[in-house]
């Protein structure tokens, strides 16, 4: 050591190498280790018609990287990846999962660095699927669909349009649902009160709902405070959108360039919600809302998405729960909206054919059934929603019927879904808090939304 001489050049070279090592180590995405191979729960007979035969194992294996979220979905993707690798021995799936809250940030940073995975999961409502697509980060798959003779008719009819952005298809649907339109009710409370249950065929309306909600709203301990609310609407932005549709309005015009939430029909919709909170006082205001109000028997009926079925496990044997379509609005229909999660190929992917096989696998019947079985929403195909493995759950059957009649997706024309989500959620907060009437507040919110819609799609 004493004899070794460290020149300035060697020092700089060493320091640079060390620094580069540190940077690379820090920047390298941390892949969540995949679990040990699990036995895939396939339906060979059902798959045979939809899946290409396994390729010969002679050629060198291709590795396809895949980005998605951790949690139930990550576990599900890992399970499906192992099954895929058995079916396609020449394609290895390298999974890299990130927590939900930072998933898209991570993805965007990897896009900026050119290191995103070959394939990835994303979402529709935020507008990110479309924004990634128009910025050339997602590979158009129309040629792959054509080359593979891929049959898009296996999906719900609205899929073919929903996967298109400015005329090109950029992804296949992994899961889908018809929006926040399920009326989940506490059957025990309804029966104790002698009230007719919400009909599973959806043949009821707001005139039926209101008396029920009043009857089920109670001050059980006589302290002057309501302990049990009759109804809890869904006031998330996309919950509002389907509510507006029940009244014949919407958040956006058909081309997504105008905000129409303050139309005459829209104002009626908001007045009804406002009255539920502040006139009839049958719904808990945001001040009063707390997690798991339904599960703890503090709400008799609430509106949620397909995932509301999972409350059954949390309810346990405390009471019996049921599900019906939410009531029809004055427009004579129940609003709904087709929502799906796309799976995409990165535009810099070197193995698009193999990547498409993987997408195909994630959009197949078995994957669509398995993800529902583990507690998420089902795949975007009628043969998934109609599968006996899912229809054994009565609440699923209600949803399958709603799915069959689902209205198409309609989002902002400039794909700024996240900004609009915040503007609607925060702006309408004043309404739910009774800081003004719908006539005073809704036009202001509509103006904020319109200002966002007027921005470019960049």
């Amino acid at each position: 050591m004493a004899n070794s001489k460290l020149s300035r050049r060697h020092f700089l070279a060493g320091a640079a190498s060390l620094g580069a090592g540190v940077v690379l180590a820090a920047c390298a995405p941390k892949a969540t280790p995949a679990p040990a191979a699990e036995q895939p729960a396939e339906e060979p007979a059902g798959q045979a018609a939809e899946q290409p035969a396994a390729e010969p194992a002679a050629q060198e294996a291709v590795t396809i990287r895949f980005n998605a979220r951790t949690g139930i979905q990550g576990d599900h993707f890992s399970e499906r990846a192992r099954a895929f690798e058995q079916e396609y021995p020449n394609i290895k799936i390298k999974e890299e999962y990130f927590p939900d809250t930072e998933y898209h940030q991570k993805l965007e940073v990897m896009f900026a660095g050119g290191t995103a995975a070959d394939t990835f999961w994303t979402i529709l409502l935020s507008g990110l699927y479309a924004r990634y697509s128009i910025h050339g980060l997602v590979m158009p798959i129309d040629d792959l669909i054509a080359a593979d003779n891929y049959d898009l008719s296996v999906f719900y009819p609205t899929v073919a349009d929903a996967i298109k952005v400015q005329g090109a298809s950029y992804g296949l649907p992994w899961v889908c649902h018809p929006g926040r339109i399920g009326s989940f009710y506490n059957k025990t409370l309804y029966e104790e009160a002698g009230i007719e249950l919400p009909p599973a065929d959806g043949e009821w309306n707001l005139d039926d709902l209101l008396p029920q909600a009043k009857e089920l709203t109670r001050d059980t301990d006589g302290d002057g405070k309501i302990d049990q609310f009759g109804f809890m609407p869904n006031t998330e932005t996309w919950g509002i959108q389907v509510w507006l549709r029940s009244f014949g309005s919407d958040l956006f015009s058909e081309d997504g360039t105008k905000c129409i939430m303050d139309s005459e029909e829209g104002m009626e919709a908001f007045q009804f919600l406002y009255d539920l909170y502040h006139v009839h006082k049958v719904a808990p205001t945001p001040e009063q809302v707390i997690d798991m109000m339904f599960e703890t028997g503090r709400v008799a009926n609430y509106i949620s998405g397909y995932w509301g079925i999972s409350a059954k496990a949390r309810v346990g044997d405390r009471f019996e729960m049921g599900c019906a379509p939410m009531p029809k609005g004055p427009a004579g229909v129940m609003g709904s909206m087709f929502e799906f999660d796309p799976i995409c190929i990165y535009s810099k992917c070197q193995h698009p054919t193999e990547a498409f096989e993987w997408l195909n696998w994630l959009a197949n019947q078995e994957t669509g059934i398995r993800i529902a079985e583990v507690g998420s929403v089902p795949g975007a195909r009628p043969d998934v929603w109609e599968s006996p493995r899912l229809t054994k759950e009565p609440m699923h059957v209600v949803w399958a019927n709603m799915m069959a009649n689902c209205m198409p997706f309609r989002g902002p024309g400039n794909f700024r879904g996240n900004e609009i989500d915040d503007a609607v959620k925060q702006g309408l907060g004043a309404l739910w808090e009774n800081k003004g009437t719908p006539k005073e507040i809704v036009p202001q919110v509509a103006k904020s939304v319109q200002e966002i819609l007027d921005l470019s799609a960049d």
Partner: protein
Amino acid sequence: MASANPTMPSQRRRMTALQRREAFAGYAYISPWLLGFLIFSLFPFVASLVLSLMDYAIISPPRFVGINNYATAFVKDELFWPSLGRTAYYAIVSVPLGIIGSLLCALLLNQKLYGTTVWRTLYFLPSLTPTVALALLWKWLLQPDFGLVNYLLGKIGIAGPGWLGSSNWAIPALIVMNLWGSVGGGRMIIFLAGLQGVPQELYEAANMDGAGPWSKFLHVTLPMISPTMFFNLVMGLIGALATFDVAYVATEGGPNYATWFYTLHLFNQAFKYLKMGYASALAWVFTIVVVFLTFLQLKASDKWVFYSGAM
């Protein structure tokens, strides 16, 4: 300087091989930190300044827009000034309360009483609670109809407010949550260290002069811990201005933008709306505000901070 040490240049030239090796070894030892600073701190710092002059959505190439982002913040962005105002409100209330609370806790725990170590641990525990757990816990405690806080208020005849669900009470609720998690935390430990550093002979001298407990606190303790208080004030103010996590988790900026703090606004612009250039401009405005306020505090500290070493 040159005339005071005329031999310095020639000394440099006469550096021995051993000294050179030692110097290089020294640089090699600090190089991980130095490179880390250059790559992960200085470079992003400069890059954010450049990006603040760009329209940059991360997923598309940046485009130069001059000072448009700054103009948008000051003139067009309807959430900019209100978010700054809310942040100031939060800081003005939470920082003094936090400092007073931590000082009181430290004074209590500085008494030589039986079980002091256990009490110190108990007071410190809430500060170890992760923000998400803290938010969930307090959402239940502050629930207006069946939460514990309003239940206890009801027992003394006070009708509790809507707390996190009320645009008037959401910031006070966040302040309460923050105080619970921070009063007994690092700030209290620093005060405790400061209190234990006060020379006992000063108290003995005060006793001989007939000073009571309040006089001793006012004329001995406070001046002697004023550097500690100054440090906590500077750090507390910066922390309060940068408050983000509890609002992000507990209220998501609501209701009706009531807790839409400046850093939450910045975060949403950058990572939710992909307006990275605009967010960089917001970050630089924030930096200038923080530096300015810290400078004011430094100037004002001449008037009230007492350094015993400067006697």
